């Protein structure tokens, strides 16, 4: 789980989705999540996953990195599906829901900087919560770097080796202890800075506007179409026999998206 890769793409990427307003992307993600919540057919769910991957490839987002993150919850969903699902199709549905929801959220996060996603949350949560959310974002990258440095230092001193798992585990635990002390020192430094600057609560995030209206429209229409398809297959029983068409359309989307993405390069 490399959170820093997400931030790099969100900050320095330049795709069609990066040009859309964060508010439009948040609405589009909400529509996609509504589709995931309501999908009740594994074939339709598979179609959503394929289509979403194709869309990400078409706008040239880093699909491989995204898939690593999106497939990660599949591991846990598999355990849940194995434990709780009464049959194979329901298990497949659970796993596909996990992957599709993760893919929707990861697409948002790979094209939108964290503070822009946190800004609307900050508006509806108590001030301490909103500010701590932004402070977590700042501290996260500092601590991730520090932990990486600590692990590298231990490895260079031959403390981390696959042949000696117990020793490596003990070294990792000590590194985490060091990281804990460092994080408390970091919080102390941040407190000093806030004190010096007269902070009384309420960080402000400058809202990012749309750089390309067509990108906003495209994201919203695409998400609405996917939700519409899911709604149709859920509430029109006559369509049940044609769910495979959604999977097929998803596969076509994926192939087309991959081709468009490759051409643009």
């Amino acid at each position, binding site marked *: 789980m490399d959170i820093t890769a997400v931030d790099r793409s969100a900050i320095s990427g330049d795709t069609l989705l990066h040009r859309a307003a964060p508010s439009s992307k948040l609405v589009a993600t909400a529509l996609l999540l509504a589709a995931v919540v309501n999908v009740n*057919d594994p074939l339709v769910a598979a179609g959503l996953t394929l289509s979403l991957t194709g869309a990400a490839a078409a706008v040239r987002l880093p699909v491989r990195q995204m898939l690593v993150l999106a497939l990660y919850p599949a591991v846990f969903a598999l355990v849940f599906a194995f434990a709780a699902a009464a049959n194979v199709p329901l298990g497949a549905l659970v796993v596909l829901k996990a992957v599709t929801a993760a893919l929707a959220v990861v697409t948002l996060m790979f094209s939108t900087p964290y503070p822009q996603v946190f800004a609307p949350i900050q508006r509806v949560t108590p001030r301490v919560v909103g500010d701590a959310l932004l402070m977590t974002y700042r501290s996260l990258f500092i601590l991730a770097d520090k932990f990486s440095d600590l692990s590298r230092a231990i490895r260079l001193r031959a403390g981390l080796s696959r042949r000696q798992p117990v020793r490596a585990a003990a070294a990792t*635990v000590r590194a985490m202890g060091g990281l804990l002390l460092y994080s408390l020192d970091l919080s102390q430094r941040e407190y000093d800075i806030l004190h010096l600057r007269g902070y009384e609560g309420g960080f402000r995030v400058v809202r990012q506007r749309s750089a390309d209206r067509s990108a906003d429209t495209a994201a919203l229409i695409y998400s609405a179409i996917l939700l519409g398809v899911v709604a149709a297959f859920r509430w029109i029983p006559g369509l049940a026999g044609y769910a495979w068409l959604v999977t097929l359309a998803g596969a076509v989307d994926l192939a087309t998206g991959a081709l468009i993405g490759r051409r643009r390069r």
Partner: protein
Amino acid sequence: MSHIHIPDGVLPWWLWVTGWVATALLLGMASRMATRTGTRRAVPLVGAISALVLVAMSIEIVPIAYHVNLTVIAGALLGPWLGAISAFIVVLVLALVGHGGITVVGLNTLMIATEMALGWALVHGGLRLLGSRRVRPVAAASTIVTLAITTTMLVGIVALAGSGATARHTGALDVETLEFRNPFSGDLINVGLLGGDNHGHDGEHATEAGHVDEHETEAEHDDEHEEGGALSVSRFAAVVYTLGPIGWVLEALVTAGVLGYVVRVRPSLLLRSVNAPPSASARVGDEHGGR
């Protein structure tokens, strides 16, 4: 294993909406308590500890679906109220990188906040009772008890969801025979998914009962889909209580190791807050005191 790795759209809407409402109330109370002792102090501390928990959670042992949590340590350092805020932040950031559903953020927050509050109570209570020299066994025992309780909460949530509430249709797929039905073909074309018999279920019904009973068989099919689509709570509990203890022991070892290291390197950090009277407003890491 304790917090919910259940994807979006599996739990019934009333359950996750209740989770969100309860979390909103908890956050309201927690932020009021945090503001009383100083926002300026709370914000960086919660930020740093939440970030630490997130970094720790990136250390995974995939085969047993386990990752380090550090929630007991975070709870011991933050206390129950700041712990609740930290729990919400951690769960939200995790959901935003696809690790856990967005709809279950509320329920997840309640689970992690409970973990932190229990961790705080058990670690501090244990250290007061047994003394600082026993920090490792106290930390390990507190972690195991905490995770056992929250895992039981998880099973309770799945049980609350109930088999009826979570039952869902699986579209054209017959979950009994794993065949796809084509409603416009008069049940003549069936495609077996996992070695299913092409003249399976539907065909049998058609030949035995004829076209007169067509509607009845449709209804039967729907009933089967409902039953077949239910979550099995007992199997879920069996798997969770089988895999869970491995995770509890690993987490207990990590917690004991980290807290043991902290008490050895900087004993005042944990022990000062343990020995301080309950009214003391100084927080962990508050080197200069005051606001």
